[in-house]
C-alpha cells in the first residue's frame, strides 16, 4: 500500500496544480506533497530493511533494498529542491523574469517529474522501468526550457533528442534481453520482463544475445546518466534549467539512470560472468572521469562546471559497478548516497550566486564570501565535499572504489581514476577559491550591507541548512537500520542476494 501511496501523492499534486492559480498554494502543495513523499520513502526504507522485499499491484511494483535506497535519495533531493524553489522563484518573480504561467508550469511539472523518477526504481518489469525513464525526459524537458530564452530551447532540444535516441537504444537492449530470456521462460510472458523473475534464471540466458543487449542498454541508460561520449546534453541542460530542476536532474535523476545500469549488470554478470560487463563499465566510467576533468579545469561558467562534475561522478559510480566485488558494490552505493545528499548544496549555492550577481561566469564574480557570507562559506565547503576531500563522505566512497579497483586487478584503471579525481579537485578548487574569496564586489546599484542581502535568501538557506545537515552528519554516522539497507542494496548490485 505504501508503494501505491508514494506514487499517487506526487501524481495527485501535479494534477491539482493544474487547477490552482494562487502562488502561495502552489508552493504549499509542492512542499506538502514532497514532505509526504519523503515520509513514505522513509517508511519504505524501514519496511524493506526488515522484510527485504515488499510489492504491490500484483507484482507490478516491487521494492527491494536497492529500490528503496534510490527512492529515499530521490525523495530527499525532491524535498530540498521544493524548499529551495519557493525562495528562488519568488526572487525571479520580483525581478520580473518569469510570469505566473511559467510558475504554474514549474509547480505542475515538477511533481510529475518526481513521480516518474520514483517509478523507475519501483517498477519490477524492465519494460515499465524503461517507460518511466523515458517519462522522466518528457516530464522534465519543458522544465529545462523554463526560461523561454533562445538558449533554453537549444538546450531543451538537445536534451530531448539525445535523450530519446539513447533511451530508444535502451529499449532495444531491453527487448533483446527479453528475447534471450524467452529461450528459458517459454510462453510465460506475463512476468517474463520482471527483473525478480529474470535474475533467478539469468545463467541460462542465450549468451550471444545477452552480450548485444547489455551493450545497447549500457549506451542507452548511459546517455541518461551522462556518460562520455553521450554526455553532450548535460552541460546545456544544467546551465539553462532553473536551479531546482538542475539539482533534481543532477542529484536525483542520475541515481535512477545508474540504477537501470546496475539492474542489467546483475543479469549480464549472472549470464556471462562479471568479465564482459565489468570491462565495459570500467571503460565508460574511467573515460567519463578523464573527459570531465579538463572541461572542469578550463571552464568559465560555474553552472556548466556542475554538469561536468556530474559527468565525473556518473563515471565514478559506473566504474565502481564495473570493478565489482563486495567493495565495488558497496562503494557504488555509498557514492550514490553521498553524492545525492551533497550535490544539491552545490546547485543551491550556485543558484544564489547567479541570482545575486546576475551572471554565471566565474570571472565576473569575486568575493562571494564577503557579500553573501553563508553562501560563500557553504559553497567552499560543498566544493570540498563534492570533490571527495576528507572528512566528507565522498572521500570514503571514492577510497572504497579505489580499493575495489586494486582488488579486482585493474591497476591502470585505478591510476587513471586517481589522476582524474585529482585533476577535478584541482580545477574546482582554483575556480571556487577565486570566486568565493578575494575582495568584496557589489552588484551595480545594490549597496546594501551584507546582513540585509542575506535575508532575501531565507527559503534558500532553509533548504541549504537541511542538505548541509544530512551531508555532514551522514559522513560521520550512518544509522544502524539505514546502513543495513545500504549493505543489502550492495548485495543486490553485487549479485549475491
Amino acid at each position, binding site marked *: 500500500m505504501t508503494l501505491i501511496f508514494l506514487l499517487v501523492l506526487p501524481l495527485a499534486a501535479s494534477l491539482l496544480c493544474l487547477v490552482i492559480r494562487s502562488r502561495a498554494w502552489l508552493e504549499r502543495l509542492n512542499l506538502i506533497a514532497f514532505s509526504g513523499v519523503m515520509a513514505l520513502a522513509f517508511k519504505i526504507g524501514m519496511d524493506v530493511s526488515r522484510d527485504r522485499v515488499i510489492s504491490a499491484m500484483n507484482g*507490478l511494483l516491487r521494492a527491494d533494498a536497492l529500490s528503496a535506497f534510490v527512492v529515499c535519495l530521490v525523495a530527499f533531493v525532491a524535498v530540498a529542491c521544493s524548499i529551495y524553489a519557493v525562495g528562488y522563484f519568488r526572487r525571479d518573480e520580483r525581478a520580473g523574469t518569469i510570469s505566473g504561467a511559467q510558475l504554474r508550469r514549474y509547480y505542475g511539472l515538477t511533481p510529475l517529474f518526481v513521480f516518474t523518477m520514483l517509478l523507475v526504481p519501483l517498477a519490477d*518489469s524492465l*519494460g*515499465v522501468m*524503461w*517507460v518511466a525513464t*523515458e*517519462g522522466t525526459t*518528457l516530464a522534465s*524537458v*519543458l522544465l529545462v*526550457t523554463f526560461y*523561454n530564452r*533562445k*538558449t533554453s*530551447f*537549444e*538546450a*531543451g*532540444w*538537445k536534451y*530531448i*533528442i539525445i535523450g*530519446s*535516441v539513447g533511451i*530508444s*537504444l535502451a*529499449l*532495444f537492449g531491453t*527487448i*533483446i534481453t*527479453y*528475447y534471450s530470456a*524467452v*529461450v528459458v521462460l517459454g*510462453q510465460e*510472458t*506475463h*512476468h*517474463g*520482463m520482471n527483473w525478480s523473475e529474470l535474475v533467478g534464471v539469468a545463467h541460462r540466458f*542465450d549468451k*550471444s*544475445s545477452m*552480450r*548485444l543487449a547489455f551493450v545497447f542498454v549500457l549506451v542507452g541508460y548511459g546517455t541518461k546518466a551522462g556518460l562520455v561520449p553521450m554526455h553532450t546534453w548535460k*552541460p*546545456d541542460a544544467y*546551465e*539553462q534549467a532553473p536551479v531546482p530542476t538542475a539539482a533534481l536532474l543532477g542529484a536525483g535523476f542520475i541515481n535512477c539512470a545508474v540504477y537501470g545500469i546496475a539492474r542489467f549488470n546483475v543479469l549480464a554478470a549472472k549470464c556471462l560472468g562479471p568479465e564482459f560487463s565489468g570491462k565495459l563499465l570500467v571503460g565508460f566510467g574511467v573515460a567519463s572521469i578523464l573527459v570531465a576533468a579538463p*572541461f572542469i579545469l*578550463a*571552464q*568559465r*561558467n560555474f553552472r*556548466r562546471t556542475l554538469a561536468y562534475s556530474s559527468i565525473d561522478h556518473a563515471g565514478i559510480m559506473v566504474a565502481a559497478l564495473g570493478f565489482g566485488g563486495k567493495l565495488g558494490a558497496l562503494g557504488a552505493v555509498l557514492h550514490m548516497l553521498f553524492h545525492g545528499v551533497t550535490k544539491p548544496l552545490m546547485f543551491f549555492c550556485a543558484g544564489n550566486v547567479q541570482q545575486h550577481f546576475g551572471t554565471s561566469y566565474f570571472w565576473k564574480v569575486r568575493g562571494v564570501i564577503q557579500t553573501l557570507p553563508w553562501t560563500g562559506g557553504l559553497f567552499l565547503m560543498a566544493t570540498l565535499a563534492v570533490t571527495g576531500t576528507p572528512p566528507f563522505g565522498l572521500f570514503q566512497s571514492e577510497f572504497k572504489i579505489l580499493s575495489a579497483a586494486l582488488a579486482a586487478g585493474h591497476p591502470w584503471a585505478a591510476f587513471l581514476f586517481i589522476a582524474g579525481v585529482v585533476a577535478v579537485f584541482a580545477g574546482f578548487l582554483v575556480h571556487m577559491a577565486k570566486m568565493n574569496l578575494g575582495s568584496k564586489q557589489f552588484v551595480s546599484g545594490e549597496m546594501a550591507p551584507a546582513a540585509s542581502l542575506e535575508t532575501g535568501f531565507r527559503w534558500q538557506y532553509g533548504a541549504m541548512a537541511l542538505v548541509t545537515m544530512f551531508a555532514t552528519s551522514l559522513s560521520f554516522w550512518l544509522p544502524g537500520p539505514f546502513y543495513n539497507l545500504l549493505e543489502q542494496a550492495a548485495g543486490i548490485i553485487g549479485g549475491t542476494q
Partner: protein
Amino acid sequence: MNLPGTQIGEQLITLFAAGMLVLQLLLVVQPMLLTNIRLFALQSLLLAGIAAIVAWFNNATDVYIVAVLTVIGKVIFLPWLLDRQVRRIRIVQEIDPFLGAPASMLICGALTLLGYVVARPVTLLGRLGNNTLAIAITLLLTGFYLMINRRKALTQVLALLTVENGVMLAAVALTTYGMPLVVELGIFFDVMVAVMVLGILVYRIRESFDSMDTSKLSKLRG
C-alpha cells in the same frame, strides 16, 4: 513452431520487414517533407501487418492490440499531427540535407551491412523471424543517420520515429508472444507524448529563431 502455416508466416514477416527497410531507404533519399510523412505512415502500416501476422500464427491475442495501436497511433494519428504542423507553420518543403542522395545511399548500404554483421552471432539461433533482427538494427542505424543528416527539427522527429519503428519491429518479431501488455501500452503512450512535446518545442524554436534549422542551435558550447 511445427504448425504447417509457420513457414508461410515466417516468410511473410521477412517480406514485410524487407518492405520496411526499402521504405526507410526511400525516406533517406526523398527530399519532400510531406512525402516523408506518408512514407513513415506506410512503414508503420507494414509494422502493424507484422504484428497481425505474429498474432495470427501464434494465437497471441495481446499482439493484436499492438497491431491496432500501431495503426491508430503511427499510421493515422501521428502522420496527421505532423502533417497539420507542416501546414500550419508553412515551412519550406525541401528537406535540405547535409549530404545528397547518392552519398546517403552509399552510407545506408554500409549501415545495412553493419546491421547484418552485428546480428549474425545472434541470428544463428534460427528461430521465427530472426532475419528481422538484422533489419531492426539497420532501421536503428539508418534512423540515426537520418537524424544527423537533416537540419530541420521536424525531420529529426520523423527520424526518431523510424528508429522507434525499428525497435518495435524487434519487439514484435523476436519475442513471439509480444511483450507484456502493460509495457506495450506504456511504450505507446510514451511515443505519443514524446511527439506532442517535440511538436511544442518545434513550434517554440520556430517562433524564437524564425527557422527550424537545428544547425542554428549552436550558442551553447564548452
